[in-house]
C-alpha cells in the first residue's frame, strides 16, 4: 500500500539578505498512512513550522525547497503550482487545524457563516452546517455565535470543523494545543484522535509532549532542521524510551520526570556547526560526532543504543 504522504529528502533553505542561508529543514524523510497519527516534536525554531508550510505550499518567496513530498503517491506538494494547491489540495486533500483558532476565524462572522462558505466552496452544497459542526463536536446551539463569544476549546472545535469539511484524507495540525489548559489539551487531543480512528492521517506538529503521548502512533523528533529520531510512540514515551540523547533530554525535562533542562540552546539555523548539531549539548559526545550521523530510518546518532526487542 502506498503511504498517503511520502516525504523523501525534503530540504528547505531560506536565502537571507547579505548572502546568509538558513538551513530550516534538512533531508527530512517520513511516511504517513491512513488512520495513523505522527507527532513531530521539537523546540521552537527547530524548523517544524517551516516543514508544515512546505507541505501546504505556503513557503515565502525567499525559500528554496528540494526533495519531494508525494501526496497519495502522485502529486508532489513541494513542486505543485499555487493554482493546483489552492483549487485541489488545501482543504480538499490536506486540512489544516491552525495554531490559534480564534485568530484563524473572521471576527465579524458567525461560525455558521464560516461553515456555510467553506461547505459551498469545497463541496458545492448548500446547508449541512449542523452536520459539519457535529463532526467536530461543535454544539449546534453555538453556531450563530461570533468567534470572540467562544471559549478557547469551542474555537478550537470550530476550526477543526472547518478543517474537516472537505473530508481531506490528510490533516495537518500546527501546535493545536498551545496555550490551552491541560484539561482542554486532553479533550482537543482526544477529538483529533477520533478523526484518526475514522481513517484520517494526522500530522501533528507540537512541542507539547503530553499531547503527543496521548494520541500519537509514532513520534518524529526534530532538531536543528533534521529528524533525529523516528519511533513508535508507546516505546518512545514508555519502555525502552528514546534512543537519541536529545529526545531523552527532552523527556527528562518534563516536570513529571527529572525536570532538568538540556544544557545550552539549539544552534542557530544560519550557523549550524559541522558534524552533529547536538554534539555541543550532548553528554555522550565523542570525536565521532564531528561527522553528521546518518539517519538510519529510526535514529541519527553515533552513540544510540541498539534497538532492543522488548
Amino acid at each position, binding site marked *: 500500500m502506498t503511504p498517503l504522504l511520502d516525504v523523501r529528502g525534503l530540504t528547505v533553505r*531560506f536565502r*537571507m539578505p547579505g548572502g546568509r542561508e*538558513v538551513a*530550516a529543514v534538512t533531508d527530512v524523510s517520513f511516511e504517513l498512512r491512513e488512520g495513523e497519527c505522527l507527532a513531530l516534536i521539537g523546540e*521552537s*525554531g527547530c*524548523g517544524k*513550522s*517551516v516543514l508544515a*508550510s512546505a507541505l501546504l505550499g505556503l513557503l*515565502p*518567496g*525567499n525559500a528554496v525547497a528540494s526533495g519531494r513530498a508525494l501526496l497519495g503517491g502522485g502529486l508532489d506538494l513541494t513542486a505543485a503550482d499555487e493554482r493546483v494547491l489552492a483549487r485541489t489540495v488545501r482543504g480538499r486533500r490536506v486540512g489544516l487545524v491552525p495554531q490559534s483558532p480564534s485568530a484563524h476565524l473572521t471576527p465579524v462572522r458567525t461560525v455558521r457563516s464560516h461553515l456555510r462558505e467553506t461547505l459551498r466552496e469545497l463541496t458545492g452544497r448548500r446547508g449541512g452546517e449542523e452536520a459539519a459542526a457535529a463532526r467536530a463536536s461543535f454544539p449546534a446551539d453555538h453556531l450563530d455565535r461570533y468567534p470572540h463569544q467562544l471559549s478557547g476549546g469551542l474555537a478550537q472545535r470550530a476550526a477543526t470543523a472547518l478543517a474537516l469539511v472537505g473530508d481531506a484524507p490528510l490533516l495537518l495540525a500546527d501546535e493545536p494545543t498551545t496555550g490551552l489548559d491541560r484539561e482542554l489539551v486532553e479533550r482537543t487531543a482526544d477529538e483529533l484522535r477520533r478523526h484518526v480512528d475514522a481513517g484520517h492521517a494526522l500530522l501533528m506538529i507540537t512541542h507539547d509532549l503530553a499531547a503527543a503521548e496521548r494520541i500519537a502512533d509514532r513520534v518524529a523528533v526534530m532538531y536543528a532542521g533534521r529528524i533525529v529520531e523516528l519511533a513508535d510512540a508507546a516505546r518512545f514515551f514508555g519502555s525502552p524510551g528514546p534512543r537519541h540523547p536529545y529526545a531523552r533530554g527532552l523527556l527528562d525535562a518534563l516536570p513529571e520526570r527529572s525536570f532538568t533542562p538540556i544544557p545550552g540552546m539549539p544552534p542557530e*539555523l544560519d550557523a549550524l556547526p559541522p558534524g552533529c548539531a547536538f554534539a555541543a549539548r550532548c553528554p555522550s559526545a565523542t570525536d565521532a560526532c564531528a561527522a553528521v550521523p546518518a539517519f538510519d530510518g529510526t535514529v541519527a546518532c553515533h552513540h544510540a543504543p541498539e534497538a532492543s526487542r522488548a
Partner: protein
Amino acid sequence: MGDRLRLSAALVAVVVLTALVAPVAWPLDEQAVDLAAKLRPPSWAHPFGTDEVGRDLLLRCVHGLRVSLLVGVVAALAATVVGTAVGTLAGALGGWADRVVMRLVDLFSSVPHLLLGIFVVAMFRPGVWPVVASVAVTHWLSTARIVRAELLSLRTRPYVDAAISGGASRWRVTVRHLLPAVLPRAGLAAVLMVPHAIWHESALSFLGLGLPAHTASLGSMAQAARGTLLAGQWWPTLFPGLFIIVPTLAVAGLAGAWRERLDPRRRSELAL
C-alpha cells in the same frame, strides 16, 4: 508595489528638483510683464503660453510649485508636530486629561474646516506664513486622533507593564517605548497631508484669501485664469492645474507604498 514605489519616488524627485533647481538655474523674472504678448497659446518661446498680462506661464508654474510645495511641506510638518504632541498628551496621560483634550479636539473639528482657515488668514496680512498657519491649524486634528488611538492601544501591552515594574517613569515609557512606535504612522500621516495642504493653499488663493495676487501660486494662477477659460483660452488653467495634480498623486503614491510597508499583516520573509 515595487513599480508603483519607483514611479512615485521618481515623480516626487522630479517635482522637488524642479522646484529647487529651476528658479536658480534659470534666474528669469516670473513677474516680467509683456503686454504685447498677452494670452499667447503654447509655443517654442512660451511652452505653456502666457497669461492675461503676458507673463510666461511655465516660469510662473515653476515658481508657483515652489511656493505650493513650501507651504505644503511646512504646514504638514507643523500640523504633525502639533497633532503628535496633543495626541501624545492625551494618550499617554489617559483619564481626565485625555477626556479634556479630546473634547477640545472635537470642538475644533466641529468648526468647518475652510471657515477656520479663512478666519486665521484674515487675521494677518496676506503672505506665506498666515497660509501655513491656517493649514496647520486645520490639519493637526486627525494626526492627534491617530496618535492618541495608537498610544491607548499600545499602553495595554505587557511590555509597558514590564517597563513600569522596571521602574520606568511615565515620561520614559512615553518617550522610549510609545512614541517610537507611533512615529512611523505620524510620519505617514504627514506625507499624506502634504497634498492636502497644497490643495488647501490653492483653495485659499483661489478664493483670493491666500497669497498676495502678484505672488505666483498655483491656486492664484488657476483663479486668475477663470475668466479666460470661458473665452476659450485653456492653457492658463490647464498647466497650473496639472502642477497641482501631479505632485499630489506622486506624494500620495509614495505614502501608499510606505503604508504597505507599515502593515503588520505583511508576511514576514522568514517564519521559523
